[in-house]
């Protein structure tokens, strides 16, 4: 047991003390604070550089003669600073100016004999969709008003015509949460799912890399002459696991502080969305449980695979199938985010390699009966134990194996060598 703790301590401290670890952690924490305060930062920048809202000057060719003023009046009621200017040139010249980039866009307006407004917006930019949308909306209400005048309807009569119906959705499925709850859960579940996904993929490949490095630098031979390969493997997995937990706790605390401090400054908007009082404790607990399960499952697999290669360069290739599994799990849960009750999501949540992400999605989004998450946790735990036992056998031989090993076929060879 003594050796176990020495390896455990070494796996943890050598990584935690490394400059790269400190730098990534600091950058991540800085990024979290930056994101949490992004609206405040934008406001500050705008205060410094002026209003920040630039005037949009739009050339208009108006053949009807009345639309331009009504459109300008319509814009004036909104927030937009769009200034319409009657064009001096003809449509052809304006068209040319747009193609050469001299002006961004122009608008032509006309009314036909039936009183229908025709508008033509000409632009070079593919990204220009906000302004045309606004113009269309404004013209639509102008046309409605014009038609109402034609039919001699009063304002109130017009309003009653457009009164929306009262529609409410109610889901009687026992596992469903209310729409409001779901909306809140979705953001939190998505964030935590992403954290689990990133953490599992990052720390497990860190293990594979570490094991391969110990092999390629040949320090492995010294290590396993004083501690059994099995102990070495589990000490490593636990040591780096602790590192992961510490790092995530740092990020979690940073995120909490960042949101708390920014929330007091900016009421409304995103910070309300994330406000901590809405966070369900059970979701957080499940996130922790599924992170740990996912980590140990994939870390054991990664250690096994890492023990098969002799050079650090081959690690990525070797752990490719494993990375694919995590990616598939993430895709399933990402698609299930909008509809967590889909059949394939339910089935996938019981497949141990998908459980950490998919079952977490389901417990986060649905009111599941207790046995479902417990069953999936039990299945995953069992898989971890089997994989640990199997991994230890491969590892025992794998660490002694040198040469061009790049395929999963070497697992058989490693087990053989481990027995001998």
């Amino acid at each position: 047991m003594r050796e176990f703790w020495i390896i455990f301590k070494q796996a943890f401290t050598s990584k935690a003390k490394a400059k790269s670890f400190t730098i990534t952690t600091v950058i991540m924490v800085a990024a979290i604070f930056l994101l949490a305060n992004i609206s405040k930062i934008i406001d500050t920048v705008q205060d410094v550089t002026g209003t920040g809202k630039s005037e949009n000057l739009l050339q208009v060719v108006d053949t009807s003669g009345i639309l331009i003023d009504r459109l300008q009046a319509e814009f004036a009621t909104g927030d937009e600073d769009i200034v319409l200017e009657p064009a001096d040139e003809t449509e052809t010249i304006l068209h040319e100016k747009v193609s050469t980039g001299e002006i961004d866009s122009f608008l032509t307006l006309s009314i036909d004999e039936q009183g229908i407004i025709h508008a033509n917006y000409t632009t070079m930019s593919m990204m220009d969709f906000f302004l045309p949308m606004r113009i269309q909306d404004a013209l639509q209400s102008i046309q409605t008003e014009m038609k109402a005048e034609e039919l001699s309807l009063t304002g109130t009569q017009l309003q009653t015509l457009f009164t929306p119906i009262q529609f409410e959705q109610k889901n009687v499925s026992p596992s469903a949460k209310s729409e409001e709850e779901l909306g809140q859960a979705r953001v939190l579940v998505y964030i935590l799912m992403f954290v689990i996904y990133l953490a599992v993929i990052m720390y497990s490949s860190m293990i594979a890399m570490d094991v391969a490095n110990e092999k390629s630098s040949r320090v492995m031979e010294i290590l396993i002459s004083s501690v059994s390969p099995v102990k070495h493997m589990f000490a490593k997995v636990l040591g780096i696991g602790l590192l992961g937990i510490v790092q995530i706790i740092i990020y979690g605390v940073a995120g909490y502080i960042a949101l708390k401090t920014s929330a007091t400054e900016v009421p409304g908007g995103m910070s309300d969305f994330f406000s901590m009082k809405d966070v369900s404790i059970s979701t957080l607990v499940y996130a922790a449980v599924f992170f740990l399960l996912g980590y140990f499952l994939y870390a054991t697999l990664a250690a096994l695979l890492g023990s098969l290669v002799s050079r650090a360069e081959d690690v990525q290739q070797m752990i490719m199938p494993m990375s694919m599994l995590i990616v598939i799990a993430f895709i399933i849960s990402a698609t299930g985010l909008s509809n967590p009750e889909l059949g394939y999501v339910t089935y996938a949540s019981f497949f141990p390699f998908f459980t950490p992400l998919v079952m977490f999605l389901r417990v986060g989004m649905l009111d599941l009966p207790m046995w479902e998450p417990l069953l999936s946790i039990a299945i995953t735990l069992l898989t971890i134990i089997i994989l640990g036992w199997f991994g230890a056998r491969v590892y025992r031989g794998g660490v002694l194996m040198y040469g061009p090993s790049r395929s999963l076929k070497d697992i058989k060879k490693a087990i053989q060598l481990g027995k001998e």
Partner: protein
Amino acid sequence: MSLQLENVTKRFGTFTAVNQLNLTVEKGSMYGFLGANGAGKTTTFRMILGLLNANEGHITWNDKTISYATSPEIGYLPEERGLYPKMKVDEQLVFLGELRGMNKAEAKKAIDYWLDRFEVSQNKNKKVEELSKGNQQKIQVIAALMHDPKLLILDEPFSGLDPVNVEMLKKAIIDFRNNGATILFSSHRMDHVEELCEQLSIIHHGKQIVSGSLRDVKRSFGRQNVRIRSDHDLHALDNIHGVLSVSHSVEGAIFQIEEEKVANDLLAAALQAGPIRHFEIEEPSLQDIFIAKVGKEYA
């Protein structure tokens, strides 16, 4: 206090890496383990350390099987040197020392002593990858010696060291032997084995082709060299019975002879030709024996 290997055989599939190996290393002695590349030396060491299990035979250390419980008594210098390139020298040595059962304070004391003895104290806080190859080698040796092991297994301990450092390391190993450690080492350098080892084995393709004390090995090899310097013509001696080969030079000639008494005949014949300036019976060097034994199989 001895290391014993009895009829040890190791097979990988159909390939026999080590075949019926026997050797005994007594307490306070050094055993030389010679063999060409791929002869089965590293496999044998791995079996002694318990990293591999023998298919047949027994390996015991003080009549006990070697296991992880005995690892604090063992010092191992692997042929392929291995240290963490990114770790600092002292942190690394503390870690490896702790793995061999030392506590932190003991480890630090031992590290200071050995770094000083090997004249590399200035590298204590450097990363291993920053050191020269020879200095890395010294750190590796310290990792094998620092916990004062009773059984030392050294795979090619002198490779990569300059002559000054070879002497430094030899002295350290001799100190260990004088303090009663049991030492088994492999080398390609016959002169080192000749200088240090009381007992030796030459293995070839997993088979032990020569074993015993250095003197017995040399005696049983039979062939000796006789060097005679004379101003007179020695060609008449070429046909004396028992002379295997001869090489003449301006100063005289060197005769390879079958057995020791042929030397007397040579001396008598040489004196008949005229007065001689030099007469010497040379023992065969280990190098000659190794090449004759191992090289023969290649031929």
